[in-house]
């Protein structure tokens, strides 16, 4: 494997959790719900995946465990914001704080243990293709899931009737309700989908990226994923581009640190966060685009009139 291939591989590994979390949150926000608890769901997915992998001896079960953990955890958010109509911003923050705390507690028993790595599954024939075969078709299942998720979400949102209904809810939940669309039920499903994707993203961190458990190992990726959704103007194809861009930035600064360029490591580590701010500013500059693309009922409380 040559140098370019190696670098591209690391970029893809760095981008996958961002992509998964962002595509999940994109669906949630398209339905009009703002879930800021992505960081919390991701870390819960990470700890659940690691713990289950350790306890069962199977990284595959760990991955599924991470997915389920994320979905269940997101239900807490759903219950508070969709049934009890609590403030979405505050509840999302609460979810993150709770997730960081709970995962720290659960993970304590697993600190320092050597992790199980999820094995790559090569796709016959396609993985033989020179250069891209190794990159695209000889990867772990979570990577494949991330790509399928992007394609699937794109089809769902823009080519299916159910996706149209979801976008309608995001545009105006009062109008959707008046037309008989099941607003709360659809939003619950969207929130759980987002939770599942994010949980799986977290699993990727603890059983593929660095097969290990470290407290707070998400290091802000959940927040970056949220920024990615805004950056992508809520469109799946742009989420893909954004995630890989960020993957490149994260890897770039790691390599720069390794190269010993004389730039303090802390400055390089700060790059992804600064890049996130830059990206948000760039998107904000085009006010018209933001106004047109933002789901109009994002973050607003919905109480069905009966």
């Amino acid at each position, binding site marked *: 494997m040559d140098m370019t291939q190696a670098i591209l591989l690391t970029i893809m590994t760095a981008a996958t959790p961002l992509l998964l979390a962002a595509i999940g949150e994109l669906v949630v926000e398209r339905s009009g719900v703002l879930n800021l608890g992505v960081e919390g769901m991701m870390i819960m997915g990470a700890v659940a995946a690691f713990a289950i992998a350790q306890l069962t001896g199977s990284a595959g079960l760990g991955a599924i465990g991470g997915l389920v953990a994320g979905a269940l955890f997101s239900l807490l958010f759903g219950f508070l914001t969709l049934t009890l109509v609590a403030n979405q911003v505050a509840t999302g923050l609460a979810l993150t704080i709770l997730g960081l705390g709970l995962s720290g507690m659960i993970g304590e028993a697993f600190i320092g243990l050597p992790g199980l790595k999820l094995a790559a599954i090569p796709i016959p024939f396609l993985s033989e293709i020179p250069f891209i075969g190794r990159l695209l078709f000889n990867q772990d299942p979570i990577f494949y899931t991330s790509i399928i998720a992007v394609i699937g979400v794109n089809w769902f949102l823009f080519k299916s*009737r159910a996706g*149209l*209904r979801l*976008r*309608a809810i995001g*545009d*105006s939940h*009062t*109008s*959707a309700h*008046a*037309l*008989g*669309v099941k607003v709360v039920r659809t939003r619950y499903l969207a929130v759980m989908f987002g939770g599942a994707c994010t949980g799986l993203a977290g699993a990727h961190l603890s059983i593929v990226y660095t097969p290990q458990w470290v407290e707070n190992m998400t290091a802000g990726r959940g927040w970056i994923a949220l920024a990615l959704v805004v950056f992508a103007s809520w469109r799946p194809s742009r989420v893909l581009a954004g995630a890989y861009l960020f993957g490149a930035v994260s890897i770039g600064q790691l390599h720069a640190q390794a190269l010993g360029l004389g730039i303090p490591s802390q400055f390089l580590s700060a790059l992804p966060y600064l890049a996130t701010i830059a990206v948000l500013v760039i998107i904000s500059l085009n006010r*018209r685009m933001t*106004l*047109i693309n933002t*789901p*109009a009922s994002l973050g607003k409380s919905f109480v069905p009139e009966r």
Partner: protein
Amino acid sequence: MQDQQTDTPLLETRGLTKLFGSLRACDAIDLAIAPGEVHALLGENGAGKSTLVKMLFGVLDPSGGEILWKGQPVRIGSPGEARATGVGMVFQHFSLFEALTVAENIALALDGNVPIDRISEEARRLSLEYGLPLDPSAHVADLSVGERQRIEIVRALLQNPELIILDEPTSVLTPQEADKLFETLAKLKAEGRSVLYISHRLEEVQRICDRATVLRHGKVTGACDPRQETPSSLARMMVGGEVAEISGAGLGEPGEVLIEINKLSAPSRSPFAVALKDIDLSVRAGEVVAIAGVAGNGQSELFDVLSGEDRVGDPDAIRIRGQAVGRKGISERRLMGCGFVPEERHGHAAVTEMPLTANLVLSRHASDRSAFLSGGPLGLINTGAVSTAAKRICEVMDVRKSGEDPAAGSLSGGNLQKFIVGRELDRQPVVLVVNQPTWGVDAGAASRIRQALIDLAKSGSAVVVISQDLDEVFEIASRIAVINEGRLSAPEPAVSMTRERIGLLMGGFHDGTGHAHAEAIDAH
């Protein structure tokens, strides 16, 4: 006369009742609609029309009584069941999605999974057939209010209903657009369909309806042939006793110019707002100038520019009592003696969750600093003075509320509007600008507010009223102008204005111009 034995009504209600707690929103309503009949449902705001119709469309469950369809009792449990039975409905407040296309909007209202292309084609065909042209690929956000209503109507027609319910359809149309709608209704009637036409506009009802049922406080107060009645007999059925006649409009000699707009052009503040173009207006002491126009033609933008919530570049573009105020904010304009009443009661004129006293401070803290605030730079709020003033306003305007100082959101529309208008009148403002003074307000409160506006003008103030309600405009204005696509027509004396002329001005000034989109569609 129809033979009663052989003609079963298409839809009939017997003793239909709806309770909300102890409130009888609908009380034993008997209604009968024959096939091929245009039936009016008359009543003012709060009479129970919307509740009745929601039961017919399956949005609410009746508490008592029964509904019969073609002579058989039915239970309509949901809008889907209503549609399946043969009832279609066009609500007053549209359920549309701005970011989606016309075809997608229609698809969402249909049951089943018909592909969007088929829906597109059907919609285009239907819309042309009924004289309501639509472009299925257009985004709703780009359409005018009249065009949006067409989507709602086409949505309903696609289900092939035998009864179509229309809730206040002409409140958002120009007189010419309304005429077009009436042609569509005539075609429906010719096809043997029935129409239940909800309105409080007596002239229209007399023009197009075969029969009318009048509601008041949830009960049926009359069932008649509107063509045999006079407007005042219908009004009496709707409102009970006499509503106070407005007196004194347009009398007296106007004095000096108190507020004027000079050649004002302002770009639109957001992609969906209307740009103001070349506005000229001057209003004198003692007169009420009404600005008529259909919603969405720049009324809010004009109001914001008059109030100072939106400042303009040229200070001379707006002058109050001769002073250039274009760059000055709303507090400074209030200090010069102006009062403002915006269109939206909740979340603009008042904060819904806050009590009335707080909402009093909201608009009067700058102008009444010496009375309501103390402590110099600290700005301590003088709760005693504020309470006294709030009580005074509620007494003068007869505001009905529960408790001493309830949240604004707990008042009915009419009472809150009385408070909001009274809040400004309490100051005897030299200039008052009001946007939609009686929208969604019951007749009693509406007449009180309109009289208060006239009285204010008589006492020497300049009053600007922006209103979509032509009846109101003719009732109170000394001069009338029309706003259309951000342009203002030259105001003319009310006595010489006709509805037809206003209608033409609403639709654009000359035959060549007017809504470009509508022209392109009409050209199909």
